[in-house]
């Protein structure tokens, strides 16, 4: 597998498309599942080189994890209303616009410009004050402008949501492990309100396993997992 250059893709969807193309697959959930690991391998470097885009990649990363975990954890997923198109469908749509953008680029570079004309201005004999250009109008306009220019929180909200929730989950799992040596994954999910929380719990669990704080046992596939403190 050849490494894709980090600066060569536009965003997470573009990276996915390129990974899928590289594997000579067509867009499907199976294809997405096959490139998930590769996708994750780019996240670390991204954090260093394009931190401002991390939130965008995390959104897609969460959906990839969801797809992967769905087959493993189907029993644990709460019923939820469908929240939009599948990732595969979204990717197919994105590809169509990427293709279309190439055609637009050809038009843009064709050097055809339709010029408007400039009618010589009519001379008004004396100065006319527009009825809505009095000092009071200027004042309310600049106040509106200042409201618009008021700096907004520079960090994308999504990043904060994600990092806080994973951190919170990790902390609460650690607390739990202080109190008991062994518990079932399903117990952890009892309070889960939506898919995001299930995924975040799963991510937190993987993180703890990586730290070698816990061991995970599953007797049969699709069954509940037993979490054991090391």
């Amino acid at each position, binding site marked *: 597998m050849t490494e894709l250059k980090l600066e060569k893709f536009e965003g997470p969807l573009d990276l996915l498309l390129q990974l899928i193309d590289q594997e000579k697959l067509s867009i499907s959930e199976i294809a997405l599942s096959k490139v998930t690991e590769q996708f994750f391998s780019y996240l670390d470097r991204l954090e260093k080189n394009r931190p401002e885009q991390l939130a965008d990649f995390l959104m897609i990363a969460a959906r990839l994890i*969801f797809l992967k975990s769905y087959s493993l954890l189907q029993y644990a997923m709460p019923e939820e209303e469908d929240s939009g198109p599948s990732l595969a469908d979204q990717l197919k749509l994105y590809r169509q616009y990427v293709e279309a953008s190439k055609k637009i680029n050809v038009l843009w570079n064709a050097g*055809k410009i339709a010029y*408007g004309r400039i009618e010589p201005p009519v001379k008004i004999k004396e100065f006319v004050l527009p009825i809505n250009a009095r000092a009071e109008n200027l004042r309310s306009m600049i106040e509106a402008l200042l409201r618009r220019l008021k700096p907004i929180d520079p960090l994308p909200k999504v990043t904060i949501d994600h990092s806080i929730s994973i951190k919170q989950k990790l902390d609460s799992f650690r607390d739990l492990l202080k109190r008991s040596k062994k518990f079932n994954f399903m117990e952890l999910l009892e309070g889960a309100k939506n898919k*995001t929380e299930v995924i975040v719990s799963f991510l937190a669990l993987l993180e703890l396993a990586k730290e070698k704080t816990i061991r995970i046992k599953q007797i049969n596939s699709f069954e509940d997992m037993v979490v054991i403190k090391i």
Partner: protein
Amino acid sequence: MSVISKLESILFVASKPLFFKKIVGVLRAPENDVKAALEDLKLKYNHQDSGIILLENGAEWQMVASPDNKEAAENFLKAEVSGELTRPQLETLTVISYCGPITKPELEQIRGVNCGLIIRNLLLRGLVKEKEDEASLLPTYEVTMDYLRHLGLNTLRELPNYDELHKHPFIETAKIGTQGNL
């Protein structure tokens, strides 16, 4: 004089894109008559070998010289430079061209990346504008007449696969998807 003759004169002297509402106001004619007159003028001008073209961009109209005669026109006015489009600019313009008016979350759902900076960049370049529509809660974005002029198209409907990509079955779901949290 007839509506169509007055319309032709106004579009000729205007020297800039005019909103349909504005035209109706200036002509003091029923909307339907103005609409019909605009269609008639389109038929009169927009054909092969016409030196004048009537551009239509959403609710805006502008009379321009044919893009095929760019070089000849530049003998009489300052040449405009199109400048290269970067990949993010191009990708964003493409989605807005096919799906505009479109909100920022919808655009982001389709592109999968935050589009705040790129929208600002395109607004500053005058290629994209915020739609003047106070009814919607979120601002919507669409391409400008300047962009259309530089593409050499009479209307966005002439873009390749316009109907398919404009009314793509997933766009509506993509738009709904922006309300979900994933």
